[in-house]
């Protein structure tokens, strides 16, 4: 056999060898003329040498001729059998020479014959063209050709692709070509060893193309037979009841023609309806047919009378199932290949799992930093001052709207964000101070009523925002340099906005820790929190400190609003979505402590993403479970993750 093939190849080589020589002498026309009959008749077998000759000629025009031929725009002149490009003109054609492109006169319609290559021939031409395109001098064109090739790969593309890999000089492009060559080898190569080698290439590879190339190899179909089929590549034997339900197994038997379809309840109903005679069907009065037992009795009577298909009882059905074998069969016949593919896919699955865990960690970190930003203001007003501020979410909303308004006046997005951050702080700081002076300071001894009063402020502010800005979402656009994402591979990626928010959360943490622990204001805040009377007698004005602390917490909410507005819809309800989560963050983390808010946000962020991972289709359920978890968590650590001890704990 092998000798025969090499002999054939040798003959073909002998026969083809003079072709380039001839081409250089006579051009494309000469090559086509050599194969004139074959080209004109369009038979696949005859055309192949012509296409190969064109390919081997190395002539620039060959590519154009092939493209025109494939598009069915190549014509042959009946008189002398020469081929031309022809454009319709009047009642005839304007001809162009296929070698030089020069005008070759006018021909009447009757003189020209259009070449109509069949689908098979066009496929051959396409494969030849792929070779041309992959060897195009312009790397951009080569990249486009490669992309087109990867979208609709065919067996014929493998050879030109291998040639192109060898000739490629651009390293990135070469890498892409090699990947595609490996994938095509898996799909189309006839040599089993080569395919297994190519499968090995993708081991542990997380690219989508790797999975796409391997998945068809391990695709299985289910089947049923009297005994396991010889020579088939069986993936596994299925046990009815364990691996597949008895209904499914029966359906496979029916499909294989090994058993009759079972009579369903709908069949029984239809048969009974068709056989009602004198107010009864199968001897049972119609009014009694309102139960499955009565219907089955009536149907059995009908079947016994030969007026309906007899049923298979459950015991009979089980016996029939026991007599047959159910299996999953690979579409790929070679066990060596499926085994290699399964192994490669297993390693890929493991790597993908690890990558997904990494991606999930990034997601959780970014969610945690969002919760932290939203909650950190509360950590001060609620955590340090013990004031329940239900309007905290509305301060976040005010910050986001401040950003939106700034963008109306400052068109440059980078500058506008830089302006919006301090401005949002100023606006919400002012609002917080005003609220503290007007409302909250009268209610320091009645915390539950602070809740109600601030709730009133919250719904008033929400409605005011609705009246001013309308109900539709307003855009707060991030600067261009925050567009896009940092992509590690096909699975792990994080958008720059989320990175920016993460960095911002860290900056705020550092800033607040600095202010509270290293400045005069922080010292006074801590003093007033622990013992206002004693602090006052030390010359600290508790009123002023309370006002400033509340303003600080509110101001931070405003800044968080700008950050949140960058990725969320800015509406009057923006803050509402964060308020319960923020309170939980503070309570879970531990009241009275900035690091508590950090711990709480981290726990909640990771928890939510973790639960979503188990049940990815349902974020609502994930949130429900998370809240339930938090309620339980509070049972065991009522004072949160980071509980203050000793005098600082207050109470």
């Amino acid at each position: 056999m092998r000798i025969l093939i090499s002999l054939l190849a040798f003959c073909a080589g002998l026969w083809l060898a003079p072709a380039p020589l001839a081409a250089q002498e006579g051009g494309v026309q000469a090559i086509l003329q050599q194969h004139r009959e074959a080209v004109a008749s369009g038979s696949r077998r005859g055309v192949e040498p012509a296409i190969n000759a064109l390919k081997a000629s190395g002539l620039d025009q060959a590519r154009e001729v092939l493209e025109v031929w494939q598009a069915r725009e190549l014509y042959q002149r009946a008189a002398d059998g020469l081929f031309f490009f022809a454009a319709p003109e009047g009642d005839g054609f304007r001809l162009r020479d296929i070698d030089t492109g020069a005008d070759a006169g006018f021909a009447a319609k009757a003189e020209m014959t259009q070449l109509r290559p069949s689908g098979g021939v066009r496929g051959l031409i396409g494969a030849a063209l792929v070779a041309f395109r992959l060897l195009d001098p312009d790397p951009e064109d080569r990249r486009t050709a490669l992309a087109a090739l990867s979208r609709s790969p065919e067996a014929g593309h493998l050879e030109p692709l291998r040639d192109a890999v060898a000739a490629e000089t651009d390293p990135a492009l070469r890498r892409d070509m090699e990947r595609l060559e490996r994938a095509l080898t898996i799909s189309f190569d006839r040599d089993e060893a080569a395919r297994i080698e190519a499968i090995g290439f993708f081991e542990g590879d997380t690219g989508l193309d790797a999975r796409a190339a391997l998945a068809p190899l391990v695709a299985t179909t289910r089947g049923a037979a009297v005994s396991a089929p010889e020579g088939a590549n069986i993936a596994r034997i299925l046990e009815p009841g364990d691996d597949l339900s008895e209904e499914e197994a029966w359906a496979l038997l029916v499909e294989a023609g090994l058993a009759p379809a079972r009579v369903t309840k709908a069949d029984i109903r239809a048969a009974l309806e068709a056989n009602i005679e004198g107010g009864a069907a199968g001897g049972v009065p119609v009014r009694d047919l309102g139960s499955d037992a009565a219907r089955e009795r009536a149907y059995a009577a009908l079947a016994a009378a030969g007026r309906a298909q007899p049923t298979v009882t459950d015991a009979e059905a089980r016996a029939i199932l026991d007599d047959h074998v159910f299996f999953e069969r690979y579409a790929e016949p070679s066990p060596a290949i499926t085994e290699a593919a399964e192994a490669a896919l297993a390693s890929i699955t493991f790597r993908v799992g690890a990558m997904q865990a990494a991606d999930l960690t990034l997601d959780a970190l970014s969610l945690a930093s969002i919760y932290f930003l939203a909650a950190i203001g509360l950590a001060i007003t609620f955590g340090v001052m013990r004031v329940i501020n239900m309007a905290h979410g509305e301060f976040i909303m005010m910050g986001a709207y401040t950003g939106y308004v700034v963008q109306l006046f400052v068109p440059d997005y980078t500058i506008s964000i830089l302006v919006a951050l301090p401005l949002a702080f100023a606006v919400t700081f002012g609002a917080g101070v005003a609220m503290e002076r007007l409302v909250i300071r009268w209610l320091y001894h009645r915390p539950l009523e602070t809740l109600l009063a601030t709730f009133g402020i919250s719904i008033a502010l929400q409605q005011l925002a609705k009246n001013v800005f309308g109900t539709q979402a307003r855009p707060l656009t991030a600067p261009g340099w925050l567009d896009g994402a940092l992509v590690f591979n096909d699975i792990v990626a994080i958008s720059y906005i989320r990175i920016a928010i993460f960095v911002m959360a860290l900056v705020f943490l550092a800033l607040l820790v600095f202010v509270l622990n290293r400045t005069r204001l922080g010292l006074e805040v801590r003093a007033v929190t622990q013992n206002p009377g004693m602090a006052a007698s030390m010359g600290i004005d508790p009123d002023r400190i309370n006002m400033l602390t509340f303003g600080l917490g509110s101001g931070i909410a405003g800044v968080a609003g700008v950050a949140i507005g960058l990725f969320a819809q800015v509406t009057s309800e923006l803050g509402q979505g964060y308020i319960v989560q923020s309170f939980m963050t503070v309570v879970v983390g531990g009241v009275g402590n900035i690091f508590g808010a950090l711990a709480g946000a981290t726990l909640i962020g990771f928890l939510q993403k973790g639960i979503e991972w188990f049940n990815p289709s349902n974020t609502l359920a994930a949130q429900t479970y998370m809240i339930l978890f938090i309620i339980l968590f509070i049972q065991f650590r009522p004072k949160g993750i980071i509980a203050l001890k000793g005098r600082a704990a207050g109470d």
Partner: protein
Amino acid sequence: MQRSFIARNPSVLVFLAALALFTILVTILAEGAGAGVISTSFVKTLGKTLCLCLVAVAMDLVWGYCGILSLGHFAFFGLGGYMIGMWLMYARTEEIVLSANAGAALPMTPQELSDGIAAQIFGVVGGSELPWVWSFAHSLPLQLMLILLLPGLIALVFGWLAFRSRVAGVYLSILTQAMTLALSLWLFQNDSGLRGNNGLSGLQNIPGLAEVPQATLSLWFLWASAFALGGFYLLAAWVVSGKFGSVIRAIRDDEARVRFLGYSVEGYKLFVFTLTAMIAGIAGALYYPQAGIVNPAEIAPIASIYLAVWVAIGGRGRLWGAVLGAAAVSLVSSWFTSGQVPAVPLGFYTVEWTDWWLVLLGFGFVAVTLFAPNGLAGLVERIFIRGAK
């Protein structure tokens, strides 16, 4: 000699008399039975308001008397609505499915009937089987029991966990709010088995009473609501008047002292929390057949805060104050949001009350909290009772 309960609490008698008078007056003026001065939809609004007053009484009991600011009682109210709604919807759909099958050749099997009902009810969320939570929906008595049992059980478990670990004050409020949020989020999912955000609808059609006009039905519900309000008002007044009432008020004022005196503070709190959750469930079960639809948005945390606000505006620690607050705020609220209030032209801007009502309401809360800590009831007392002295 111990005087009778009513003699010690004349206000209860006054309240019951006023409630009876109100109910008779509405009946006489209503479309269904009398003069037709009051439209059916307004009778329904009044009936719903009575239910809101009932849940406000429950809230006052748990917050005003026992000091537990629960932000979850409207969730229990909504659960009560869901429980009755399941039976209403099931039974009504059963009637529809049976009448659709009336022309068919064979009577339906139980399985076919239940499949037909499930397809009707769950078509909107893409389901065709009755979820397990509907197991009792075919039976009115079971479902009526669930109106009491489900809110009661949730309150019992939650309260036991929370009170046992001494979660109190604002922490408890936040925790109950979290519970409410969890419940509403769970109901919002389509596969919760309660039709996701579509909720249960068509509840105003009472199965078996298709021939009774809505005008008459609305009166029946008004009477039922008034009866429930009167009954539970009496119960609540009796509960708070005796020694039990003194203990729970003491818990509100100083929990630690009551504990040191040897009372089981957790037991008292748990009892009040659970009892009021059950009352809230009943109120909801009466409310939603009048409203016609119950959906998860009703259970959102904000609704429970509104409930607290009604009680605060009405006046905590006085049962009639809670009723006054709930009635006043909800009626005024529906009046303002109905668009019937004339707009106020200011020349440069016209104040449309549908837009500005919430702003007014919000600042109203602030004003009441700051200037009238005892609410409307406090004002009334200051005017009448001090004046009488």
